[in-house]
């Protein structure tokens, strides 16, 4: 199946925005797949970290709708292994931030049952709220 990808001002602007927020140069990515190979969460993701990188490089805004963003827990395994020294976790954070700054949250604390809230330690709650809500 052929997929047509159009690069235009809009895709370029999106790519630039992610690069600005993350401080990373996505053109460095070789698509070698080391990030996906080492990612402990990859089985749970809808697109792999390498696919996420490719989408950002091509400025495809639909990357913002993938689950991968919210499954990445910034464990930094990809970051320490990338042969081009790209910090993939910073790119995932930039994408999460684009959503969160539009006030589109992934976690609403009101959805958590009281008994679950009670047993969760502060460290987990604060981390989750900071990463998954705005």
């Amino acid at each position: 199946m052929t997929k047509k990808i159009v690069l235009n001002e809009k895709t370029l602007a999106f790519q630039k925005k992610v690069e600005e927020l993350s401080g990373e140069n996505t053109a460095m990515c070789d698509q070698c797949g080391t990030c996906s190979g080492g990612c402990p969460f990859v089985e749970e993701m809808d697109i792999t970290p390498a696919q996420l990188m490719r989408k950002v490089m091509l400025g495809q805004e639909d990357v913002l709708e993938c689950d991968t963003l919210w499954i990445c827990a910034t464990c930094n395994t990809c970051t320490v292994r990338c042969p081009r020294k790209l910090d993939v976790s910073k790119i995932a954070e930039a994408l999460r931030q684009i959503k969160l700054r539009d006030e589109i949250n992934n976690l609403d604390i009101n959805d958590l049952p009281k008994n679950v809230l009670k047993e969760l330690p502060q460290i987990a709650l604060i981390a989750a709220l900071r990463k998954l809500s705005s």
Partner: protein
Amino acid sequence: MKIPYFPGCSLKTYASSFEKSAIASGAELGIEFVEIPRWNCCGVVSSLTSDDLMHHLAPVRNMIRVLEMQNDKIVDTDNKMLTLCSMCMNTLKRSNLKMQEHADELETINDFMYKEDQKYDGSVQVMHYLEILKEYGFAKIAEKVKVSLKGLKVAPYYGCMLIRPKEVGIDDAEEPTIFEDFLKALGAEPVDWRSKKTCCGSYLTVNKENIVVKLTGKILEDARRNGADLIITSCPLCAFNLDSRQELLQIRNPNFEPIPVLYFSQLLAIALGLDINKFGFENNKVDGMPLLKNKILNK
């Protein structure tokens, strides 16, 4: 040696046995933990976007407190700051590094903290207790061991925040050895295992419990497969995921064999001959006491 100590939220609540055992073991070695007055939350996770300076305020404020302690001569450790929790260490170190590398951002941060008597200058050195112990000397610790942990097979669990990313990690990101060196000093046998630096799922425990249970299940089974009696960690969130989530694992798999998860400082305190009842094992869901009594204490 009197060192400024940053506790963080977990150490004061559900990881109190971590704090108690670390302070007690430090005292035994002549390392006095002086709690930072008016410390505040580090934020747990570091802000990674380039334009978000606001979330670095809280970590930096703690560093100003360290400089104040230094000025007041309550401590004597050349701007060092001691942390126990891996996540606090990581967050504080990353903010500190940002301040040290970007003078303009440091200036902005200082402008925001005009109510502080002291400006921050990037001079604080954030250190983990394990680094302090390494500096003290594992050989020297070995000499002070009163109760050898000989015969105890321990799986050291590094997790993420202690060793990654490289610029703030306390050891090699791929082949860390600091826990192994520590364990050998106590007479214990470190287990070599693949999952020692595999993420436990971290904060996903809040809204994606299934992922965490799957990941921790694999980690715990790997420890057992390699013959470990118990697991040690330095991260209260890892400890929660690895220890507390075993209840669910047992429900899902009746053949699952629970394995105790302790803080490294608990083993240190035992090895130094301290009273096990004083620093408590009350936080541990999977009780490690029968194993320790059987293998070490009643020998």
